[in-house]
């Protein structure tokens, strides 16, 4: 695995070019282009805000949009990386069948492109905080917690990429996977503390709830970006361990299946 990672490093230029291609192609021929990266989360947030703060009321949450975005940011990254990665091998089958390069570059390039999107969305988030800070200056405190992202982001990244490795390689063999993923991701969305506060989960179920490793990762983001409290160290350690396991396992499976991709496609 180490030697494969070295290979990826050798091909870093291609990796970056593929990621750039991903971003370019996504917004080519659209008038607003790159702005869609900003518009999308804003509207998602608007819709959820209307639904959940006006129709279903989680009354005790003030500034619901911030609360929501704090969870939506990591979720969007995870979702786009896994879903994009799932199709990445198949949609580049002409390349895989004709040229050699480390195949893991394909899902990795998707994850990099999404990382760029993550930072764009983060900008939207911070702009929002800035506006809200005019009325409730205590929210400006979030800026102090930003360095914690340097800890949380690698965890989210490793976890998402590991999962994407696993799913993308399985999908080459069984195309059902991409259909299953649609349902799976929807379930995962509601099983993670994105639109509701964790306090709504009854105490007796919380053990089961945290079996979902994404829940603890997203919770850490929320704690940092909304509740402005440093996440507990044991939570971070647990998340990190899970992320590493997912990454190594996902990558190992990917590497095992990879040599026969050209034949299966």
């Amino acid at each position, binding site marked *: 695995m180490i030697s494969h990672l070295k290979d990826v490093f050798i*091909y870093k*230029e*291609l990796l970056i*070019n*593929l990621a750039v*291609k991903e971003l*370019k*192609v996504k917004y*080519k*021929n659209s008038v607003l282009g790159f702005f869609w990266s900003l518009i999308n989360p804003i509207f998602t947030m608007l819709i959820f805000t209307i639904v959940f703060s006006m129709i279903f009321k989680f009354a005790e949450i003030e500034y619901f949009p911030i609360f929501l975005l704090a969870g939506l940011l990591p979720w969007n990254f995870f979702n786009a990386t896994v879903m994009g990665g799932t199709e990445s091998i198949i949609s580049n089958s*002409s*390349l*895989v*069948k*004709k*040229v*050699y*390069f480390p195949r893991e570059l394909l899902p990795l390039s998707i994850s990099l492109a999404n990382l760029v999107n993550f930072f764009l969305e983060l900008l939207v988030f911070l702009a929002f905080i800035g506006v809200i800070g005019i009325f409730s200056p205590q929210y400006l405190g979030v800026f102090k917690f930003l360095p914690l992202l340097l800890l949380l982001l690698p965890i989210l990244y490793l976890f998402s990429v590991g999962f994407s490795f696993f799913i993308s390689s399985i999908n080459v*063999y*069984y*195309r*059902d*996977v991409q259909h*299953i993923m649609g349902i799976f991701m929807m379930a995962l969305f509601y099983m993670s503390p994105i639109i509701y506060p964790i306090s709504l989960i009854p105490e007796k179920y919380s053990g089961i709830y945290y079996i979902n490793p994404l829940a603890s990762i997203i919770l850490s983001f929320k704690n940092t970006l909304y509740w402005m409290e440093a996440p507990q160290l044991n939570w971070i350690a647990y998340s990190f361990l899970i992320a590493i396991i997912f990454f190594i396992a996902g990558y190992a499976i990917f590497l095992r299946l990879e*040599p*026969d991709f*050209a*034949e299966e496609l």
Partner: protein
Amino acid sequence: MEVSEEIKQEPVEEKEELAIKAKDVWKDFRLFQDKNQSLKEVFLKRKRSNFETFWALKGVSFNVKKGVTLGLIGDNGSGKSTMLKILANILRPQKGDVEIEGKVSALLELGTGFHPELTGRENVYLNGSILGLSRKEIDKKFDTIVEFSELAQFIDTPVKNYSSGMYVRLGFAVSTNVDPDILLIDEILAVGDESFQRKSLDKLYQLKHEKKTIVLVSHALSSVADICDEAIWLDRGKVRKIGDARQVVDAYMSDVNRQEEERSGLDQSGGADIGNRWGSGEIVLSKVQILDSEGKERQIFESGEKMIVRMAYEARKEIERPVFGMIIHTRSGLVCSGTNSRIFGMVPEKLDGRGFVDYTIDELPLLGDEYVLTVGVHDFAGMHDFDFHDQKYVFRVTAMKNSDIGIFKAPGVWQITEE
């Protein structure tokens, strides 16, 4: 003729001279009867669908020295492309080892990885990095690439607006400027128009001149014989012959010819089911044969060989001054050459009974292609056909020892006079 001929390659003294070393390479493909790709079936049947194993390569071994151009030839399905893909690290062999020294660039398809929405320029960079170039290296080569592709004015247009010719040109320009140590090429000499083909051939000669190691799969046998130093003839996944390119190509060609003759050799005699026949029948051409120098009936001739068109006649009554003629057409009907016995000055006053007429071509000037023969017998004035076999007999000419192009060899010599 079914002997497996194998010329042992000379043992190489120094290992670092080798660019490619393939040892006992086996590769199987599973041919699924009904390939299932759904989990449901996997769970229900508890196994993947039935498949047959097809061995594409059965223990292929060979070495390629640095700077050598190697051709892989053989019938479709003989394993050539599979071997190339294994060398390119796209497929992995079931068994056996492949060792490669140096940077490999595989041109299995031109323009692989071009994204239609991106411009020519963007695609050059993307494609270059797929083939292993750094941005700096592409910067350096960018102008050469654009110049070679002749696409300077379209370089900032999305390639989806390119014609297929432009697409291929750009692809070739990028691929051949990658500057690899080892170049793997699959049939790309067969794409593009005539001038592009010539250009790519020139480029290939240039790379060869630069002492690149080249492995090329091609059906264009005369090109293989010309460009390659060595060749490997693969036959159903096994090495049938390995060695000097021309010798291997010759051996392969004669095997193909032999098989072709076996397949279609005898439908010649009675007149095949093609073409038309008409005439009043006072004299008929009862049998038409194409013979070689030894008088053996053949369908395949080498360019420059002796060829005899023999027409056996049967006259039912006395015929005055009959004229025998023959025409050679291309497959598309173009007349390459036509002549008759009157033009030659051989007209018998009377002909009766049976006999045969030969038209002997000492050195067949035709080049490699398939041709169709017309024969006929008519009256002296050419007004009345007794028996006319219009485009009824097919024969093939191979031009292994002749790289001229076209349908016939214009005999001549070259000379340069410096003043």
